[in-house]
């Protein structure tokens, strides 16, 4: 039975392990439709959300997931200014661990932070996103969203569009999708495609209209205008001209193509408004599935029983 010690990334997850997670998530989805949206499974357990990067929606999703399992959820925000050398990251985690949490959920702006913390504490860790490295729960909820609409994942083609180089969602999705036998095509301006990414078994294209014609799923990513992208982009206007998913471009895609986005969406920049509201857009389903997937992972990390009963 799949019982992971921590969820640090999708890299290394096997197909049957991912299927177990998705199947478990499916059963948890139903709980959120009941009038009493709670089961006593993790009653009295403590889950700490340690978010060093601001994020309302992901944190809320983890919080709701824990609470629906009857766990006590604590939210802590930290600052990751690299010029502020205050309490060291490992210190913070070890201090929290001394209060006996059952799970530590961590989001951090630097790659490798989740792994580093996991090495230095005993309790299970869920990586809610570290730098550009991994965001496993996002990839898993993306897969669940695709699977529940398409029925199965094997052989599906996915186009992921946007700032690939700075996206942890992309990396986690690549590993998970390849494990499930899907084909991944990355689309974006050359400046935003990281070097040698093809070594992960994916293809690259710079032209949106051409790239989406034969795919089953289009995933649009958020474009950021932070300092790190200073030299990578000319302007949002140009980016949008070349890479915004409009209904005109969608005409060239398959009739049953699905559209997803990890959110929050830059409306009109990455996806045109009418496309966002069309029935092919599963963005809100992703949010619902996010709670279910996170509940499933918490259950798999902590739920266990002595099978000799009954």
């Amino acid at each position, binding site marked *: 039975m799949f019982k992971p010690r921590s969820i640090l990334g999708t890299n290394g997850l096997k197909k049957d392990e991912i299927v177990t997670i998705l199947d*478990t998530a499916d*059963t948890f989805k139903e709980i959120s439709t*009941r009038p009493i949206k709670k*089961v006593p*499974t993790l009653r009295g357990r403590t889950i700490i959300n340690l978010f060093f990067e601001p994020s309302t929606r992901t944190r809320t999703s983890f919080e709701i997931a824990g609470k629906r399992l009857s766990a006590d959820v604590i939210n802590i925000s930290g600052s990751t200014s690299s010029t502020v050398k205050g309490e060291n990251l490992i210190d913070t985690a070890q201090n929290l661990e001394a209060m006996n949490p059952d799970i530590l959920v961590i989001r951090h702006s630097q790659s490798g932070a989740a792994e580093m913390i996991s090495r230095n504490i005993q309790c299970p860790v869920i990586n809610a996103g570290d730098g550009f490295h991994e965001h496993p729960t996002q990839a898993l909820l993306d897969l669940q969203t695709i699977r529940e609409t398409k029925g199965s994942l094997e052989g599906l083609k996915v186009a992921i569009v946007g700032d690939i180089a700075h996206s942890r969602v992309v990396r986690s999705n690549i590993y998970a999708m390849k494990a499930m036998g899907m084909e991944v095509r990355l689309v974006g301006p050359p400046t935003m495609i990281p070097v040698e990414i093809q070594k992960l078994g994916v293809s690259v294209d710079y032209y949106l209209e051409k790239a989406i014609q034969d795919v089953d799923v289009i995933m649009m990513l958020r474009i950021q205008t932070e300092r790190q992208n200073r030299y990578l982009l000319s302007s949002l206007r140009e980016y949008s001209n070349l890479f915004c998913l409009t209904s005109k471009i969608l005409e060239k895609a398959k009739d049953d193509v699905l559209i997803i986005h990890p959110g929050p969406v830059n409306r009109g920049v990455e996806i045109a408004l009418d496309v966002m509201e069309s029935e092919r857009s599963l963005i809100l389903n992703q949010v619902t599935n996010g709670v279910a997937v996170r509940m499933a992972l918490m259950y798999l990390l*902590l*739920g*266990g029983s*002595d099978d000799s*009963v009954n």
Partner: protein
Amino acid sequence: MTSVVFDAKDISRAITRISHEILERNKGANNLALIGIRTRGVTLAQRIRVKINEVENTEIDFGILDITLYRDDIASGKHPPPVEKTSIPFPLEGKQVVLVDDVLFTGRTIRAAIDALIDFGRPSTVQLGVLIDRGHRELPIRPDYVGKNIPTSKNNRVRVRMSEDDGIDEVHIIDPSTAKDS
């Protein structure tokens, strides 16, 4: 050593009798709802539902309950049991619910099932029907409908097999303390 205590014919007669008893107790099929627990409780409940339909010519409300998330023995460090779907597609208010399970033993599964049920709504009554009652209750739970009472010792294992799930209808007891046949 394994011994069969209930065969296909016995099971069929028991289900017929239980179905009639349910209708008798509840004065018909109005407001009746059957909810099967876990795998074989669901199979049993299905058969009862079919029987009731034959007799009263009416479809009654039917639900499936997975009580894994309500167990009182969830502990970390071991394997999380696989969770199956729960489906109660009708409101519970005003319903006379009959919970159906294959074997009644300590009573903890039924306690968990009642907890789960209450989270879905407030039935007017909850009754319990089981195929086998093997004794050794650890909680004050008693069945309303029983296929057969079978005295067992605590270390025995009682296995119910239904043709829909296992290819054959039978109930057998496994006694791990007796020597294995050569």
